[in-house]
């Protein structure tokens, strides 16, 4: 099911939290909604789920304007904070399916299927309020997926997980989403998560959509400095504007665009070495061959044409660049 946003304005008090003239979440795709904290990502999810009412404009689920009835039919929502009612995980999943009008025999099938896919079968009999962070997130996800809703909303699905659980779920989640959900919107402030999980991306900064489209297009062509900085580009001041170098886009040695790096420290990692220092005052690092002479106080580093973007002074606020 396609999700579209038209002329959406949402205010909290006098503050305009969201202002989105148009945005589309393509049917059957996973779209990562990315942006810094407070950019309005979770609020947009709440508007899609009809948990908030827009001050202007609309969200459409398919061809129908999103309201509580439409959300009940079409939306599954895994909140950032995995919340449960008292009782076992199975009881919680049964309750969710019962509220959606799924019959008893069908409920058991769906619970078994979602539990197996999310690896929570051993947790089904456990008290849902006593799960660890990782277990709770998986159970939260399984409950959402068991609804088989045309639209699945995941708000920071990997937050609060320890590193091994996060790695595992980062691997499993795209497979699960492809198997269970048709249209998925994942909110994250972590660009790596966004890149791993999504087909498309929408960058939301200060309540406005700065870029949206296929993942490679958005990541490879950030529209402004703030979007570039959020996606991990290194921003360097240059004559008449700024240069943005893609993450891991800086190489040791000459290339299309050369820079001088002032080396502070060289870390020997056995299989390779890393030189840490500053380029035009911005702290960064480049990989060095494992063998070779120790670098001097300065190094020549470079970025390819593909890895470097130029922005004029008016294409972003330098003060926000980090």
């Amino acid at each position, binding site marked *: 099911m396609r999700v579209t946003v038209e002329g959406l304005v949402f205010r909290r008090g006098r503050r305009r939290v969201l202002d989105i003239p148009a945005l589309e979440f393509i049917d059957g795709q996973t779209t990562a909604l990315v942006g810094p904290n407070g950019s309005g990502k979770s609020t947009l999810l*709440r508007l899609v*789920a009809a*948990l908030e009412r827009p001050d202007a404009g609309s969200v459409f689920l398919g061809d129908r304007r999103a309201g*509580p009835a439409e*959300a*009940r039919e079409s*939306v*599954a*929502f895994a*909140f*950032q*904070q995995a*919340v449960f*009612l*008292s009782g076992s995980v199975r009881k919680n999943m049964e*309750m*969710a399916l019962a*509220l*959606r*009008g799924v019959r008893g025999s069908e409920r058991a099938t769906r619970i078994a299927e979602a539990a197996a896919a999310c690896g929570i079968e051993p947790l089904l009999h456990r008290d849902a309020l006593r799960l660890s962070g990782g277990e709770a997130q998986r159970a939260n996800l399984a409950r959402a997926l068991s609804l088989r809703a045309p639209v699945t909303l995941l708000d920071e699905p990997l937050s609060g997980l320890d590193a091994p659980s996060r790695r595992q779920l980062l691997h499993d989640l795209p497979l699960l989403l492809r198997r269970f959900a048709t249209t998925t919107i994942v909110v994250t402030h972590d660009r790596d998560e966004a890149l791993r999980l999504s087909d498309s991306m929408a960058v939301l900064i200060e309540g406005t959509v700065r870029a949206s489209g296929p993942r490679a297009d958005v990541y490879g062509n950030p529209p402004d400095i703030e979007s570039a900085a959020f996606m991990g580009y290194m921003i360097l001041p240059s004559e008449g504007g700024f240069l943005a170098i893609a993450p891991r886009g800086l190489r040791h040695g000459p290339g299309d665009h050369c820079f001088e790096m002032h080396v502070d420290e060289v870390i020997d990692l056995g299989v390779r070495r890393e030189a840490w220092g500053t380029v035009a005052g911005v702290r960064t690092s480049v990989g060095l061959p494992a063998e070779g002479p120790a670098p001097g106080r300065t190094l020549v580093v470079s970025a390819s044409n593909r890895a470097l973007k130029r922005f004029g002074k008016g294409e972003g606020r330098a003060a926000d660049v980090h």
Partner: protein
Amino acid sequence: MDALWEGLKEAVRLIVSGDAQLREIALRTIFVSGTATLLAMGSGVPAGYALARGRFPGRTVLLGFVNTGMGVPPVVAGLIVWLMLVRSGPFGDLELIYTKQAMIIAQYLISLPLVLGFTAAAVQALPPELPDLLRVLGAGPLRRLWLLSREAQLGILAAIMAGFGSVISEVGASMAVGGNISGDTRVLTTAIVLSTSRGENANAMALGIILLAMAFAVNLVLTVVQQRRRRR
């Protein structure tokens, strides 16, 4: 210590002898305070839920009023009800003054802020995403109220216990609007005051012990329900 001991002996004697007057006063006490608490529960729990979950202008001020109401002395509540129900008052025509109904109204007003305030606090202590989750899943307002009240059961039972405790032990309001009429509006607390004023200390002590035992019995039942839920 003698008064306490004599009171205890008198209490046992009154209970064992099946004193008709005592039974009548004890049953009336349970009826008046129990009805007031049930009414406060019926209206205070949904109102507390609405106050906890609602977003409307003046909510904080309203919550402030409720919290203030939790500390209003029963005699003041009784005075207000008396002024409303007395023959020259705005509701004098109802002829409720010095009746059990007047006592129930006064006790209801005493326990309502406690039930409402503690319920609001208990519901607010739930994860804020829980009501949203239930809404997205399709639970209607009554279903949400029921499910969330079950989740906040520990706090809501504490609210009901606080409400009941406040009215079964109060004397000022019952005296003001009930009048302590023998065989009609006399309850244990007003009977204790009367016995004390007559110098019947052992009798007063006995009534006090029976009052405490009754309050303990009711609260024990509620506590068992509350703690059974906690163990689950």
